[in-house]
């Protein structure tokens, strides 16, 4: 389907092919650059980043230092504290992914097995609407509406009941009350859930019904069939959803930048602020336009970020196949 059918394209030499088919064959090869437009765009992005940076910085100690020091007057003494940003990214994206995966497993299972068609369809549509809301809107909602509530009500409550847990009792080193890891994780979770739900749901729906019927016929309950058979058959889709969601969470800059606080620190508690690689790239862009040394460092940040997201998106495609639900298309119900 995807290609020139060889049986059609290459007819026996005895009967001359109609001119339309000669042109067709020509087109299949001459048109190749058309298919490579996405590849060219990808290469252009990668090349622009690689060629504008200072790659040797990636190997230097000041890039990997654990303290941040940037004063435009003394660019020689700059230290970039990259591990701290990487840690901030890992904490926020990792926790958000954990919650999003659990939640979207529950949602996808409900949608495929437990909800009647009409209700499932409307709930799926509503969930997909979450995917369409711009990240900057999540950001302002988080900063203006949720952060005060988090700071004044939710966090004191959590602290009074759960202070005995690690990271639940520590100081709230936050830029503004309520901002920080907890809020960023919540916002990221809400942003990723529609994507992971759609992919897991697709892969659950694609499990052949014969397999399920066999399980039910052996006396397994609906839930046992879901847990032991259906999820197991669909596990590649679940893995794909996890990789893709992680890539999305790692790359999200605006919403995270608005609610994560922005401090360069290892957060002492979930009520404290931190910074992710993507958020740092956004925070610093303004001053980067003025200072070459800062810009070079940021380009290396961007390069590592690009490599991480490419890696996870590649894993996602390996898991779900090239036509698998990749990107936002599936969350839009396509």
């Amino acid at each position, binding site marked *: 389907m995807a290609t020139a059918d060889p049986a059609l394209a290459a007819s026996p030499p005895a009967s001359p092919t109609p001119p339309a088919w000669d042109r067709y064959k020509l087109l299949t090869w001459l048109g190749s650059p058309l298919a490579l437009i996405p590849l060219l765009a990808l290469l252009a992005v990668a090349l622009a980043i690689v060629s504008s940076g200072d790659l040797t910085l990636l190997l230097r100690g000041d890039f990997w230092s654990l303290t941040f020091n940037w004063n435009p007057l003394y660019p020689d003494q700059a230290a970039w504290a990259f591990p701290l940003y990487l840690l901030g990214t890992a904490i926020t994206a990792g926790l958000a992914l954990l919650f999003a995966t659990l939640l979207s497993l529950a949602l996808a299972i409900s949608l495929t097995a437990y909800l009647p068609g009409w209700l499932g369809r409307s709930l799926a549509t*509503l969930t997909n609407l979450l995917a369409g809301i711009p990240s900057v809107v999540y950001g302002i909602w988080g900063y203006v*509406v949720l952060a005060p509530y988090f700071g004044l009500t939710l966090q004191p409550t959590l602290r009074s009941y759960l202070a005995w847990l690690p990271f639940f009792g520590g100081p709230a080193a936050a830029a503004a009350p309520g901002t920080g890891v907890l809020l960023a994780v919540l916002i990221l979770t809400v942003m990723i859930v529609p994507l992971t739900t759609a992919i897991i749901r697709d892969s659950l729906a694609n499990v052949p019904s014969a397999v399920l019927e066999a399980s039910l016929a052996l006396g397994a309950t609906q839930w046992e069939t879901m847990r032991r058979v259906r999820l197991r058959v669909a596990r590649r889709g679940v893995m794909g959803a996890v990789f893709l969601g992680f890539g999305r969470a790692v790359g999200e800059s605006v919403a995270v930048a608005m609610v994560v606080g922005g401090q360069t620190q290892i957060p002492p508690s979930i009520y404290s602020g931190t910074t992710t690689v993507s958020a740092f790239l956004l925070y610093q862009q303004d001053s980067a336009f003025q200072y070459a040394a800062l810009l070079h460092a940021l380009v290396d940040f961007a390069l590592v970020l690009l490599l991480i997201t490419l890696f996870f998106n590649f894993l996602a495609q390996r898991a779900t196949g090239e036509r698998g639900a990749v990107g936002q298309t599936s969350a839009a119900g396509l």
Partner: protein
Amino acid sequence: MAAATPSNPASDLLGPADGRLRYRLWVDRVVRWGLPLTFLLVLVPLFDLLYWVSAKALPTFTWATISTNPVGFGGGLWAPITGTFLLITIATAISGGLGILAGMYTAEFAPPPVARLARLAGNLLAGVPAIVVGYFGYFLLVLYTHWGFTTLAGAITLSVFMLPYVYRVCDLSFSSVPRDQREAALAAGATPRQYLLRVAFPIAFPSVLTGVFLAMAIGLGETAPLVLTAGWSNSPSTGLLSTTSYLTGVVYQNYQFPDTLGHLVTLAFQAAFLLVVIVLVLNILVQVIAGRYRRRLQGLFS
């Protein structure tokens, strides 16, 4: 589900020795009713967000909000609205044109290895973070071209971000034209061009359209690529090579101002409200067209 609930007549027949089975049926029932409740965890944030964005934006939303330019600590959204419209129009034209061509070619003509490579690239491009695309635009379109911060640089950067979505949906829609249609057309003597334009295109078109709308919705809501390329101006863009403002930028620049200082936060919420409305309309349009299209295809099969 409703039919299954008075189920388990078996459990009434179970004897006292069947505790294990009773337990399994109990777990099944708990999951059946408990799991769908998790939807509350998604619906509460959705409606909370929609409520608060409306509540903060609407009380002071007047005609002046739309018709005047941002000034100082207040003003309206006219320049950002026109800026967003201009950016999205150009970006959709570029990414739509290139994405549809590339997708159609990948689905219909490309030799398998080429198609595989192209799809991989498309999927990877969809995963590139917006902020990285922004830096790409800054280096290539702001610095390298010596344009500086311009509408055109913003639009092209945005189109790179939107391209993979158009491309993927277009590839998918041409690939899912039923094989019989192709075989029937070719058997009836259609040339490849006739097949493509008269058979495949009409079938795939609605779905391609959803891809374009989806990409528009995604592009509309993006901030990071524009922050690094489009610059900022409080009056409407005077040309492709001048700076421009845009709705997402209004939100991003003003969200932190205290309420006491003019009404910048309100303005940010009003911009957010407009964005949400436009994006939701586009998304609903996508779902409606996709639903119609699916039904049409099913009609084709039966």
